[in-house]
């Protein structure tokens, strides 16, 4: 590793943490309805919007009402994106005269952007008009991220409130997430990116004369604005098919750093929001620490695996056997590793390298990040929801083992909470296994494979881990733009999303209704090292037990075969 590699590896966690903490505190204020430094500018606009849509700012909702508003809003969004794609040929802002999108691709894309997954089975610049990109995709990038934030805020309120029948107002939370959190951050990021040369224009393409004398059409478009929300909202859907490996999306080392920073920022800030809203900042810090440890541990294994190199490449004379396939030479190994680890740990899914070409054990780390349910920072909002579900599971066991009926942060965990948190934790995993199982037994599933053997299995598992975890990054190698994959991944994305969000709101409603048990010396402190380690242990064990067989047959077997000289 070079000294600039080290600089990035060390600088990144420190910078993001340093920015995440104040952002977390800021968000707590926003959602508690307190005044912030942005209030003088935004509050009037906020009031106008409420009046326009007839929202009563003071009205409180039960979890059922909250969930209903959310579902209707989200479904309508998905339908609009679907229709936009179908009729885009007849609409303006279509300089490349792109026709309507195939129904299955359109459905997949609508679901994908509506669920904050941004799985892209299509190639952006060749499929979507500027109007679809801006009015459909970018708008959903904001909304799907904002919805994630509203749900986690509602869940936090479940812990904060006592004997209360309500968990907040969906419309107010949604408006505030967008106005106070996402738009300001996106404005800053867009400007920073544009300053580094990220493209932002309405024209469709430019034609260039190459050195060889031939003519080349280069696609351009309103990239920077979509790029910023792509990271800030952990969406990950690139304007171009190559995503952040494309020089127009990610031109310089600074933009690379900024993009990793951007995609980590909000998920990292939310544990601090939890701490601030609970008025127990150590609790927020403990959850954050568990996430950070998992993130760094994965990063360590990942970097080690890449730096080991491939013995086969070594034989043909590559220095140290370092594998550069699929990586941008300008990024190098470590920046690719940092980006890939961050984008799979959070459910962003933007990529600056091709994950398919990583070493087998690296692929294992990436799949593990997604398969455990995107809880290592995770998606905007949904990551912390998953983590809190694991915390409930942890405290269920810990509570029993200290002889108390289980509780977390003063709230008793009973049958209802256990059912819901188990749904949150296990349904994406079950779905991932079932769909992968179907894919490997059907001709339609196997036909899309780019590689055979264990690597082919990894491609399938990765696709469903990515979609059921609402990550959206692709392993590449797999042709996902088929009716089979468009439909199965759509299903994975929908279930992955709503089996997290709806149970989380149900838990919020149930917890808000409960009393808060005051802490005593008989309460197990959920802010200490023992809790952090046990939480990590539970996540690793659940992940390992669920995926041991399939990871053995996929990446692990591929690694072992590679060591004996066999490649796929």
């Amino acid at each position, binding site marked *: 590793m070079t000294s600039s590699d080290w600089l990035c590896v060390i600088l990144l966690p420190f910078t993001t943490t340093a920015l995440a903490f104040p952002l977390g505190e800021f968000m707590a204020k926003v959602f508690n309805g307190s005044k912030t430094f942005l209030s003088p500018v935004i509050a009037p606009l906020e009031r106008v919007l409420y009046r326009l849509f007839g929202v009563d700012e003071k009205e409180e909702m039960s979890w059922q009402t909250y969930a209903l508003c959310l579902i209707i809003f989200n479904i309508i969004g998905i339908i609009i994106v679907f229709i936009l794609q179908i009729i885009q040929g007849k609409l303006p802002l279509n300089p490349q005269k792109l026709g309507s999108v195939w129904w299955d691709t359109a459905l997949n894309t609508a679901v994908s952007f509506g669920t904050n997954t941004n799985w892209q089975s299509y190639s952006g610049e060749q499929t979507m008009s500027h109007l679809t990109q801006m009015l459909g995709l970018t708008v959903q990038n904001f909304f799907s991220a904002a919805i994630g934030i509203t749900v986690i805020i509602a869940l936090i309120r479940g812990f904060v409130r006592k004997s209360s029948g309500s968990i907040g107002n969906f419309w107010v939370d949604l408006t505030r997430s967008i106005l106070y959190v996402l738009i300001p951050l996106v404005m800053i990021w867009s400007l920073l990116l544009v300053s580094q040369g990220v493209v932002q224009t309405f024209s469709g393409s430019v034609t260039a004369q190459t050195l060889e004398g031939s003519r080349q059409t280069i696609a351009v478009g309103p990239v920077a604005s979509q790029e910023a929300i792509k990271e800030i909202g952990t969406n990950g859907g690139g304007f171009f098919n190559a995503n952040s490996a494309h020089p127009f999306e990610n031109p310089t080392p600074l933009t690379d750093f900024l993009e990793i920073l951007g995609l980590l920022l909000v998920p990292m800030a939310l544990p601090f929001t939890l701490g601030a809203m609970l008025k127990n900042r150590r609790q927020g810090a403990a959850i954050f620490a568990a996430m950070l440890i998992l993130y760094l541990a994965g990063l360590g294994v990942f970097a080690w695996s890449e730096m080991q190199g491939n013995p086969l490449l070594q034989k043909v004379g590559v220095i140290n056997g370092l594998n550069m396939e699929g990586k941008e030479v300008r990024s190098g190994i470590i920046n690719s590793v940092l980006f890939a680890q961050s984008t799979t740990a959070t459910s962003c899914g933007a990529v600056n390298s091709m994950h398919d070409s990583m070493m087998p054990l690296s692929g294992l780390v990436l799949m593990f990040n997604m398969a455990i349910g995107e809880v290592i920072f995770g998606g905007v909002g949904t990551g912390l929801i998953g983590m809190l579900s694991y915390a409930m599971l942890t405290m269920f066991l810990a509570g029993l083992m200290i002889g108390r009926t289980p509780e977390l942060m003063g709230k008793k965990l009973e049958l209802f909470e256990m059912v819901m948190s188990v749904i949150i934790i296990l349904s994406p995993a079950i779905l991932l*296994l079932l769909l992968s199982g179907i894919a490997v037994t059907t001709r339609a599933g196997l036909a899309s494979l780019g590689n055979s053997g264990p690597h082919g*299995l990894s491609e399938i598992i990765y696709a469903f881990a990515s979609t059921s975890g609402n990550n959206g990054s692709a392993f590449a190698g797999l042709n996902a733009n088929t009716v089979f994959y468009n439909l199965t991944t759509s299903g994975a994305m929908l279930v992955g999303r709503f089996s997290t969000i709806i149970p989380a709101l149900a838990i919020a409603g149930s917890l808000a209704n409960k009393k808060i048990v005051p802490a005593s010396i008989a309460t197990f402190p959920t802010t200490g090292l023992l809790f952090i380690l046990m939480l990590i242990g539970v996540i690793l064990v659940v992940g390992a037990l669920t995926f041991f*067989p399939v990871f053995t*047959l996929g990446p692990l077997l591929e690694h072992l075969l590679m060591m004996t000289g066999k490649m796929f």
Partner: protein
Amino acid sequence: MKATKINIWQSRFIIPALKDSFKKLNPVVMARNPVMFVVELVTVITTLIVVSDIFTGKNILFNLQISLWLWFTIIFANFSEALAEGQGRAQADSLKKNRSESMAKRLLSGGGSEVISALKLRKEDIILLEDGNTIPGDGEVIEGTALIDESAITGESAPVIRESGGDRSGVTGGTRVLSGKIKVRITANPGESFLDQMINMVEGAKRRKTPNEKALNILLIALTIVFVVVVTTFKYFADYAGVSVSLSVLIALLVCLMPTTIGGLLPAIGIAGMDRLLRYNFIAMSGRAVEASGDVDIVLMDKTGTITLGNRMATEFIPVDNESENELISAAILSSLADDTPEGRSIVVLAKEKLGIHGSDIRAPEGAVFCPFSAETRMSGIDCSDRKIRKGSLEAIREFVAAKGSPISDEIQKIVNDISKEGSTPLLVAQNEKILGAIRLKDVLKEGISGRIAKLRQMGIKSVMITGDNPLTAATIAAEAGVDDFVAEAKPSTKLDLIRSYQSKGHLVAMIGDGTNDAPALAQADVAVAMNAGTQAAREAANIVDLDSNPTKLLDIVEIGKQILITRGALTTFSVANDVAKYFAIVPAIFIAQYPQLKALDIMHLTSPGSAVLSAVIFNALIIPLLIPLALRGVRYKPSGVSALLRRNLLIYGLGGLILPFIGIKLIDAIIALFKMA
């Protein structure tokens, strides 16, 4: 108080339990336990495979062994439940023995009476009991007073007094009237008494799952679903990899991964908890209350009877105005000879001790007349020919001497004030117009109460003392006993209000009570322990009845409640941690022929693929009977810091559960290799 433990490891318990284990194979019964039900389902499939093997003649030995061990797994699990039930039944029988054969004299509404079998008694029947009668059922004394031997139920040999009207009116079936004649109203139909309710809770089939058990069950079901999916899809992934896995190996893998250890032992843990309660002479009305007792963080205790012995005792004689101590003591004795109150007797005892007199050689002088304590005079004493001796409170004695023209001196006033300030009660002794001195009456703590309160504190439970005394007296006792808080000058409604206010702050409150006054508060408390000697109202409002009527036993309930939860948590952790080793045994075994590279995962170096699978299945089956003693006894609970407790349990059951199966499977594999069973 004395725990009577029944040794379960005798053939008279084991043989019926074994029979029951087979009876419980009935799928309708098994369905109560979803985890084991799934195991039974797949085990039937393995049996069918064996049957088909008989015709094909392939693999029969291996499949037969797998199938047999899976059946053993289920039977071992059933055995644990049956054994716990047997223990509970035996425990209850020993309490119940005396009640069924007895006869009762029922009073007829039109006058007269009839003698009927105790089993025919109904609620609201009124029966007459006389010397030597066994009380046929739970009830309440409505007339008369009797001395009752409760040793059959409590093991306590000293008889107790039960009388109508007061807080000591409850009688329990199976106890015996030593002397006295009482009318008792029966309060429970046969089969509905507290004991019968308790017996229901140790019978698996009738037992209702407690809330926490239900929540844990959800977790176990979820794990089962996940593993069913994991194993089913595993077949297709293996097919993809070009390896065909046989159905019996898949089923073996599934059962090994499923949480069969905790799933199998879960009912036994709950029942055994109830058994332990019975052993401590508690009768619980619901499992929920027992679970909640592990969570209690505040306990309300009456001062009188719980913290103190209930009677003030003389602890010191303080002479005044240069009077000699001996003179004060003799006067005190004389004034107390006729005083039959506990205070009076304690004065005589202390005086004898001070004077070094043994036996009862103190007599009143000839011709003396006793003046017993009366509500008007508020004094007791003796009138001799030459003198009048009186003892009583400051006010009463002040009137007595004032009538003879002498005032209370400053010294006396000061002594009285000092005694009061220290939380004791002063009594003054006067002879004619002269005050001889004061007697200090003090509330005496029950033996060991401070230790128990300190232990409660270690468990994180705050103790609050409730008393009708003035704040000064209350504070002294509170400090001496070491309670965390106290409420003085409490009215009957204070307890209820206090419980409500604690509960509204999220606390879980336990309360011990016996009086009718306590009933509303008991009904409000999360864990309400009624003394068996208490009134019917109190017993009905409570969710746990203490047959020993010993208020300090709350600690035992809390410990039992915590033990049940800890045992569940520990075995769940253990069960899940076990899976890691089983994966390492079975997965490489399946693929090693096709992919020798996966030998790297075979860290146990097992003899052969067949032996690896079989060893895992055998380990999974054997671990259940090995853990039955633990499930029945409960994981040890020692009040200590929660973090230390968790660390310890995580180390033993988490880390231990991770490592132990590696060793166990390796050992079983070696034995299998030795006998060439696979």
